[in-house]
């Protein structure tokens, strides 16, 4: 029997906010019958469209899936969209006083549904699933696995299965998952070393490594690419290629994404600039 906290039991036996909101501002559906759990989340904003005034859920799943959904709807009420967007799966688990490790995927399901609901509200097209499917049994992609590993500091294959289910079926993808964990750990280790003052050469090598492993694979999904041109003091000069070069709408997102990654993994003072553009129109 699972060791559930009293709060999990309470939210399971007396779930809050079961149902569907009619004409919701946000709606997010994740999971499937085959996977064994699924969640439909709806929320409504107040008249000023500032804060979440109501949230409801429908869940097919075990006790911790129902409790996580119930907790999420409670947490959402009164938050702005921006605040809601910052809720992580850990926050959901924490709200419940913790979840058994094997059940962490229930909190991830909550976070995923919330993300979808916010995307829906913002009127953004539903995000295409990024990456290649690694776990065929549960349809989990490499990008999703990498995200779970990075966000939750996972180090073991079993952890990945507990959080995103990948590897929980036939087991054919275990090697691939291990590779993903290793690649994330490798980057972390490089990052740790970096805290000592890096020479320019070391910085460039590290930049190249991060571009290769973290950034290019994501850009390539949309037919884009990036090259490192130079490192000038704290300015990282890059050139966007392919679809990225002409795609003005996504440039802010791309800049933020690349800069965040580089600041996180190489050095926080670095600023990304696109060559051939004036400084206000950096990539």
């Amino acid at each position, binding site marked *: 029997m*699972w060791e559930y906290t009293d709060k999990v039991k309470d939210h*399971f*036996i007396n*779930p809050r906010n*079961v149902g569907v909101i009619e004409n919701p501002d946000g709606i997010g*559906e994740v999971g499937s*019958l*085959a996977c*064994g*759990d*699924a*969640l*439909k989340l709806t929320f409504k904003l107040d008249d000023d469209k500032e804060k979440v005034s109501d949230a409801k859920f*429908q*869940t*097919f*799943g*075990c*006790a911790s*899936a*129902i409790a996580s959904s119930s907790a999420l709807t409670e947490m959402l009420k009164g938050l702005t969209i921006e605040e809601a967007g910052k809720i992580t799966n850990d926050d959901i688990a924490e709200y419940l006083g913790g979840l058994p490790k*094997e*059940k962490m995927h229930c909190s991830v399901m909550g976070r995923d549904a919330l993300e979808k609901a916010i995307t829906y509200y913002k009127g953004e097209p539903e995000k295409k699933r990024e990456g290649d499917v690694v776990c065929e*049994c*549960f349809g989990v992609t490499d990008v999703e696995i990498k995200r779970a590993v990075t966000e939750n500091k996972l180090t073991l294959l079993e952890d990945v*299965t507990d959080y995103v*289910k990948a590897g*929980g*079926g036939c087991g054919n993808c275990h090697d691939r998952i291990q590779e993903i964990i290793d690649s994330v750990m490798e980057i972390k280790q490089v990052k740790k070393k970096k805290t000592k003052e890096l020479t320019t050469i070391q910085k460039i090598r590290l930049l190249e490594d991060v571009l290769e492993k973290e950034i290019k694979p994501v850009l390539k999904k949309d037919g884009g690419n990036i090259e490192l041109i130079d490192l000038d003091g704290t300015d990282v000069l890059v050139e966007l290629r392919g679809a990225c070069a002409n795609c003005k709408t996504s440039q802010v997102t791309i800049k933020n994404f690349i800069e965040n990654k580089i600041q996180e993994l190489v050095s926080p003072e670095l600023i990304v600039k696109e060559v051939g553009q004036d400084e206000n129109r950096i990539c």
Partner: protein
Amino acid sequence: MKTVYVDNNATTKTAPEVVNEMLPYFSEFYGNPSSMHSFGGEIAAKREDARAKIATLINAEPEEIIFTSCGTESDNTAIVSAIETRPDKKHIITTRVEHPAVRSMCSTLSEKGCRITSVPVDSKGRLDLDYLYDSICDDTAIVSIMWANNETGVIFPIEDIAQNLADRNVLFHTDAVQAVGKVPIDVKKTPVDMLALSGHKLHAPKGIGVLYVKKGTRFSPFLMGGHQEKGRRGGTENVASIIGMGKACELAAEHMQEEAAEVSQLRDRLERELINKIPQSIINGDKKNRLPGTTNISFEYVEGEAILLMINQFGICASSGSACTSGSLEPSHVLRAMGVPYTAAHGSIRFSLCRYNTIEEIDYIIEKVPPVIERLREMSPFWKQGV
């Protein structure tokens, strides 16, 4: 709150008569049956009485009974012994619905170079006998097939299989843990070479098992130690539990027939009423060939763990083949082997009854379960779509 225990395929209550028989063997007659003094030696005679009672239940000879610590040890011993004593043979045939006690050992042996054939079942959990017989080859060291399935209660035609394999001179082991004491077993009529049973599934305590090994079968011990069990299983005997096992088998032999009739009536009532009251519920397994006390029902569009924890609130103890209850992410291998769709497999509940269950308890379950399913379905995003 009262407890309504309908999870008897998981474990059973130790019968009060069994406990009574056992009690003197803890602090009063605590001798070691291997000792030379009469205080210990006299215990050996009691142990032999128990052995005879167990042998009687399955119509074996007492010397064909080896005491072990559990059903799993018995299954492990049988398979490993077959491989050890037949070094020229490296093929094992088993089924896709076997208990982990057999499955895990087979997968370990497959890593060590054995070839494993897992015979499939149909949607009712019935074994594909042609597949089984076609799989046999000169390299086959052992066939290991359960007598009755723990999850669905489906009984395999072990009499026919044993005869067929005996005619072909293929070694045959059966995991009869769920069947012994519930259906008649006669190893003189059914020529199995080895058969595993477990105490705690038939109202003896946990921690005692038995392996029947037919006289003349080549055997290699699993636990090496002293000369206990004529060198076939080392380790000082679990005397009190052996005495208890003897008593439990005696009780089973006495009451099996009437119990089977009574328990199956209760089971049928439970099954019929739940199916009537709850739309879109499905019985898993072959109703014609089933253990008297077992029913496995899928309630579509709800998840098993949630059902179990909800009915736990009412003191009802059952189990589920859902992914979440197993700690794995896939629903039960048995239901998957049967091709039960995911919509149903995740919501499967097993009720397993025994002679201690009453009609009042069954009616209590019939009263409590339907509202739980309804409540969970109302929470499920698939329910309205499903209808």
